[in-house]
């Protein structure tokens, strides 16, 4: 299980997260929703070691991740699908995927995982020799997701996969997330599309202004109350 305990983090003098605590149980899909500026992306970046943690801790199976280098996370089974996809635009689709298996222990399984990802996303197979920069938004998101899967992560952190995509593509991506969960992958999904997120999630956190306002099982969420909290109509 991945746990975040009393985490405080931000960018230099500007603090974003105010002592947040979240738990992401094994094999479950946990959604983090909230308006712009809630600190959702910052939380994922802090977990991955992309920004320093000021206070608190991040633990994976009671093993602290605080202060570890980002490049060691893949080896521990974590993969981040970053906001804005961050595909390597000047490289082919296939090379992008190969980068997902860069650490030496992952390289022997490269061919197998490439086949697996192409199986999940046939469109990427069609375009495997094309430059990633020439892909559409939906294809780029598939590539980012595929690249993350190349290291066979136990834990997938996904930052706003639906951003700017057509509904049909969003449905396709969410179907794949559901499939991954069924295979036992633990998923942390940051999403602004509350409706879609609630439909796939086991439990949900609502964040606003760097704090956790609500934590409930997805099935038990009262959408009116969520709506009110989201738009700050109540404490």
């Amino acid at each position, binding site marked *: 299980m991945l746990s975040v305990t009393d985490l405080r983090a931000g960018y230099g003098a500007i603090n974003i997260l105010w002592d947040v605590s979240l738990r992401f149980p094994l094999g479950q899909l946990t959604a983090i929703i909230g308006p712009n500026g809630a600190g959702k992306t910052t939380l994922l970046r802090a977990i991955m070691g992309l920004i320093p943690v000021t206070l608190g801790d991040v633990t994976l199976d009671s093993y602290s991740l605080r202060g570890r280098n980002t490049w060691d996370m893949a080896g521990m089974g974590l993969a981040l699908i970053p906001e804005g996809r*961050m595909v*390597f635009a000047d490289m082919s689709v296939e090379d992008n995927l190969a980068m997902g298996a860069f650490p030496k222990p992952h390289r022997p399984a490269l061919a197998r995982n490439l086949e697996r990802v192409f199986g999940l996303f046939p469109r990427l197979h069609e375009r495997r020799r094309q430059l990633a920069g020439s892909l559409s938004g939906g294809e780029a998101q598939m590539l980012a997701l595929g690249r993350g899967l*190349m290291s066979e992560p136990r834990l997938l952190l996904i930052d706003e996969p639906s951003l700017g995509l057509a509904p049909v593509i969003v449905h396709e991506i969410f179907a794949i997330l559901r499939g991954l969960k069924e295979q036992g992958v633990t998923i942390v999904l940051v999403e602004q599309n509350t409706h879609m997120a609630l439909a796939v999630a086991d439990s949900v956190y609502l964040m606003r202004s760097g704090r956790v306002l609500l934590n409930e099982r997805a099935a038990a969420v009262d959408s009116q109350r969520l709506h009110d909290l989201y738009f700050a109509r109540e404490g």
Partner: protein
Amino acid sequence: MNQRNFLFAVLLLATYVLVPAVFGDNNYVMGLIISALIVAGIAIAWALLGNLGGMVSFGHAAFFGVGSYASALLTMKLGWPVLLAMPMAGLIAVLFSAAMLPALRLSGPYFALAILAYAQIFRILATEMDWLTQGAKGLSRIPTLPVLFGIDLGSRSGSYLVIVTLLAAFIACYAWVRRSHYGTALRAMHDSEQATRVVGVNSVMLKAWMLFLSAFMTGVIGAFNAHTINFLEPDYAFGGGWSVLPIVAAIFGGYRTLSGPVIGALCIYLIDQLLFKSLLPTGHQIMLGVLLAAMILFAPDGLLPLFRRRHA
């Protein structure tokens, strides 16, 4: 052996044999070619750091100077054989480049400025530490390259063989890194360094390795130069020309290609010495600026890609 490697080998053999056979008796021309190839060596090292590491350096004179002084002092003060002192000088340049590591977090113009300042520090050190370097007076009577397998490497033709061998080794090493996993990762870093970290690339270490490799190559070339001209002084060994000429050469020839820096160095140096110098005995370097400006305007990718495009 694939076709490209075969071509490289044939070309190398031809350069080994043909140039000394044709110009071997003409010390002036051989000297010019060797000087051009020295610039080419630094240009390869500079292009490697720029292309693979994504760092623009204005301070390769520092590595060149450190390499030349290190090799000169190892042979003169400690009596090391020249051929052992040269690679050691490369390693010493690597050691000194490690002082640059904090600057690796800087990018673009900030890195360029930091390394420019860094190069100046070494020129001053070499001048002030006269108990070691004999300061501004300079070092003279630096040992020449030895005789090996009956070939006098200290002669013009012999030195030519040494520098061509060095350049071939540098290009082979550059090509190997570029084709490896690390080359792909370095390419990916140009798009997004954060994304490469997320997939498990120790980007700081990779950039440091490129700096070390570039410093090593430049240091060895500096050492070679010290043993061919047999004289060093701080203003010469750490002169800004060793930083600027290779940049001009690499950009002129095509810094994204493997052989562009070499072709660029030969063109630039020979045009400068044979043509511009006779037209403008003082300040002929200004013509290089004009040439570079024209090149950037009309063929920003350099000579080699321009040539390839015409024939494609």
